[in-house]
């Protein structure tokens, strides 16, 4: 009899810290001001987006520079459902997920024909197509975009404060769900396959792992999550336009930089990366394009000289695991009878 154990001493501490942090954050509406709450929601959405991108690129080897396609898709689905179908905004978020996943299937069928960097550019083309299509839809504002109608806004909650609390808790819940979902996936059989693919795709294939199928599953799941987060983002913004919905800078460049700096291929990476990113943003404030320029330079430096990112350096140095993702085989002795 044997079993696989996932926890390590440091991961037990890690989980405890996560739970404590979650409780503190859940209570934030009672101790934080409005500004901080908005900032926290922004951070949550980036942690979620970066974690999902990490799942694609860091674990499955699918480097996408076109995830903004699904962020924008989620946003536009929300606005479409609210404006055209009169759906409750919060319900719309949860419908955007499955639809995003459905859309991902034919998209994958097309772009999976491309490999490596060509796949990356292919994802970008898809995002461009979505953007162009969105600007053709006049009922959703065409090229200039549209605002969420007041009636829908009020349907969420009677007071602005309540609405902001709702969005905050939704953001926290969705992000936690994304993280938990990723951890569960990685702890499962599929997760083992993913780690194998990450380490050596050819070897994984020759060991009987259906690499193509797993990549498709991961791509569709990522689209599911990304679309929901996108819907939430634009619900908070209360306004959408093709350029903001499908912005490469906001939804891909920042996400990639966060993940690279935090640590690709590790679940903790995007979390660390987001904290660093926002800390830098607060201190460097209004530097505009100079800020992006520096981020680009830092990402290049990290990619060349510390490719495992900040968390990677920490793992190498201290061997910490913040989450119970390790696999250790524990053999238990037979209690009696013949061996």
């Amino acid at each position, binding site marked *: 009899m044997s079993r696989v154990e996932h926890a390590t001493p440091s991961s037990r501490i890690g989980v405890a810290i996560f739970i404590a942090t979650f409780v503190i954050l859940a209570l934030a509406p009672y101790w934080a001001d409005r500004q901080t709450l908005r900032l926290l929601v922004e951070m949550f959405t980036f942690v979620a987006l970066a974690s999902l991108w990490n799942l694609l690129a860091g674990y499955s080897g699918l480097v996408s520079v076109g995830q903004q396609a699904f962020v924008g898709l989620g946003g536009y689905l929300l606005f479409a459902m609210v404006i055209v179908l009169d759906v409750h905004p919060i319900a719309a978020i949860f419908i955007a997920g499955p639809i995003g996943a459905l859309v991902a299937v034919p998209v994958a069928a097309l772009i999976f024909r491309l490999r490596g*960097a060509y796949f990356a550019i292919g994802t970008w*083309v898809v995002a461009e197509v979505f953007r162009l299509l969105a600007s053709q839809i006049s009922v959703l504002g065409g090229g200039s975009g549209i605002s969420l109608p007041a009636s829908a806004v009020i349907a969420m909650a009677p007071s602005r404060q309540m609405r902001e609390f709702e969005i905050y808790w939704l953001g926290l819940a969705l992000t936690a769900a994304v993280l938990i979902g990723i951890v569960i996936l990685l702890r499962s059989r599929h997760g083992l396959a993913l780690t194998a693919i990450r380490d050596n795709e050819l070897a994984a294939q020759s060991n009987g792992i259906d690499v193509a199928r797993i990549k498709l599953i991961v791509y569709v799941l990522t689209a599911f999550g990304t679309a929901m987060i996108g819907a939430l983002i634009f619900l908070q913004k209360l306004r959408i336009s093709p350029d903001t919905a499908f912005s490469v800078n906001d939804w891909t460049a920042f996400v990639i*930089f966060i993940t690279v700096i935090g640590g690709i291929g590790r679940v903790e990476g995007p979390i660390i990366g987001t904290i660093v990113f926002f800390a830098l943003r607060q201190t460097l404030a209004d530097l505009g394009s100079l800020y*992006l*320029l520096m981020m*680009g330079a830092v990402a290049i430096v990290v990619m060349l000289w510390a490719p495992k990112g900040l968390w990677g350096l920490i793992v190498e140095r201290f061997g910490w695991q913040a989450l119970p993702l390790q696999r250790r085989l524990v053999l238990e002795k037979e209690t009696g009878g013949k061996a």
Partner: protein
Amino acid sequence: MQWLNVILQGVLIGGLYAMFAAGLSLIFGVMRLVNIAHGDLIVLAAYVSLMVTQSLGVGPLTSLLLVVPVMALVGYLLQRLLLNRTLGDDLLPPLLVTFGLSIIIQNGLLELFTADSRKLQAGAIEVHTVQLVQGVWIGVLPLIQFIVAVAVVAGLQLLFYRTALGRAFRATSDDQAVAQLMGLDTRHIFAMAMALSLAVVAIAGVFLAVRANFDPAIGPARLIFGFEAVIIGGLGSMWGTLLGGIILGVSQAIGAQIDPGWQLLAGHIVFLVILALRPQGLFPKVSG
């Protein structure tokens, strides 16, 4: 007759797209590197030309004499000092480093030149037209650009298959280690390939700048056009890339004729259809 005109315009701009693609295809062939900053480097070349024409008071086509060597040098140094470090089995470093480079170039240009739209003036030649056949007129400048594009593609073919450098490119692409055994410094070969790629980029950038307005943000779209031309035409074939560019240009022209908002979409859709039906491209080079 109007449709003939539309298609002709598409063919002519296809030449420009083929030039966007040629540089991209070259470095992929030699070192399996896809340069995500390729489009932004085209825009960089346009701005370099802007500076040269403004400070020296020469025309854009004359500025090529300076812009091409400058960009070639930039390419050599870029590869030698930075991009050579990203080459290897892992796919992430070259992708992310060139993506970072793309962001740096865009924002650097934004800081230096602002987001204002610019255009280079080529003088009277911009309005001259010539009659091809009865009732069909095309601009002299687009025609010159197309002829140059064909010449560039032909030149690259010649270089690859008739010169020692081309031999070195092909050998290094086949087997890096054995190429070293031939006395080839592969770091230098890769840098030469990038220098050549950026020389082509320089020409493309100047033509782009004369033809249309440009600003720091239009790089990614040029990358996408180049990439689509390569995929439509088929990997590994320079002439295929030219044809791919032409097909893309014609698709866009037809789309624009149906509805101005459909210009870009038409091109993307044709690309996606070809990807779906014939992913190896229309004229792929048979390897081996």
